[in-house]
């Protein structure tokens, strides 16, 4: 299984000289194995997708965690949407109040975007999911609602030999007493336990988090604690705060390295453009 990181910035694209190492594109990744390919989220990083990425069967699956702007803003610039010969399957969280199609149409319609969802030339198939098990090509996938404002899913993707868990926006420590020790009470544990690679929200430092509780994101410290509870092998900390510069992320890396012995898994900050082989 290969995981390509195309967007690891949170909230808003922040490309510039101070973010050129870790990257400024918002949430998007591609997971592939043999002929199977999945796109995770449609942030601005999805612009990297070109014709060469389209699988032989001309089917592309996009799994959306939720519909906050930084996870869908690149969809309008996703080239396969404008090809009649491509079948695109959009998977996203169901809601009791409105269909996935109707919620996405708020973006895919004037005045925000000139082309309406219904007008896209591709063959578009919508899948509304919740706590759901399903398969795409080689992959066995488990989606699960997690703590984040509005209907939000995390994904566990199981390939032939490895497991990747994707939780870009997640606040498992929300509450007076932070993260609860009993695994049964930890949001996201059911899809992250024993993953070979976990990509997890670490937007804030502990200091930042104190003034952003309930915004749906985690402190780096809570992310490390979550990864430890889930007994994963490798943690990628992402959804970098838009104000966080490369220099600050390097400094945070140095600080975290001082505590490296506390954790029995590898961890580092996610870098846009990198590829991991599991």
């Amino acid at each position, binding site marked *: 299984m290969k995981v390509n990181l195309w967007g690891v910035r949170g909230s808003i694209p922040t490309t510039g000289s101070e973010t050129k190492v870790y990257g400024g594109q918002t949430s998007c990744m591609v997971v592939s194995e043999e002929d199977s390919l999945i796109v995770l989220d449609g942030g601005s990083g999805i612009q990297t997708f070109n014709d060469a990425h389209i699988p032989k069967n001309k089917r592309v699956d996009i799994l959306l965690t939720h519909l906050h702007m930084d996870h869908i803003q690149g969809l309008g610039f996703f080239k396969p949407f404008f090809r009649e010969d491509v079948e695109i399957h959009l998977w996203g969280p169901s809601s009791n109040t409105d269909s996935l199609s109707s919620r996405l149409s708020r973006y895919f319609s004037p005045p925000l975007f000139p082309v309406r969802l219904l007008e896209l030339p591709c063959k578009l198939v919508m899948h509304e999911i919740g706590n759901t098990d399903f398969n795409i090509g080689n992959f066995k996938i488990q989606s699960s*609602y997690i703590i984040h404002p509005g*209907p939000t899913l995390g994904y566990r993707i199981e390939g032939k030999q490895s497991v990747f868990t994707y939780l870009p926006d997640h606040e498992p420590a929300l*509450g007076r007493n932070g993260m609860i020790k009993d695994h049964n*009470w930890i949001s996201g544990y*059911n899809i992250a336990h024993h993953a070979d690679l976990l990509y997890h929200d670490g937007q804030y430092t502990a200091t930042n988090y104190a003034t952003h509780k309930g915004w749906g994101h985690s402190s780096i410290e809570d992310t490390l604690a979550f990864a430890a509870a889930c007994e994963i092998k490798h943690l990628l900390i992402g959804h970098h705060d838009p104000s966080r510069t490369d220099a600050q992320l390097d400094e945070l890396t140095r600080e975290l390295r001082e505590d490296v012995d506390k954790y029995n898994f590898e961890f580092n900050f996610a870098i846009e453009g990198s590829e991991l082989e599991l």
Partner: protein
Amino acid sequence: MSAHAIEVILNRQLADCLSIPVFITDTKGNLIFYNEPAEELLGTRFEETGSMPVEKWSTIFTPMDESSNVIPPAELPLVKTLEDCYPYHKTFWILSLKGNKEKISVTSYPIIGRENKFLGAVAIFWKAKD
């Protein structure tokens, strides 16, 4: 993997922040969490007991009406919520740990999640106005 649904986890996180007794059950009525104010009512700590089967925790209180007649379980708010997934409210008396009769109001509501699935129930105990 028997993790609780996110809607149940969020109810616990809320209960953890409240200063009124809150009890959370699964769909069968087994007590899966109670907060610190509820610990005072039960006389036990959640950290020590963990979850409790319905047969055990339902006998701790002795619900009574004004004339000290025992109220049958089927008339209690939480039992009714578990039965039909609707919210209920009732004022009645219980025997405290010290053996005193205390007037309380109980509000119960079902946890019905995003997938319209019944996931459990919550009972909030209020000290009733005299």
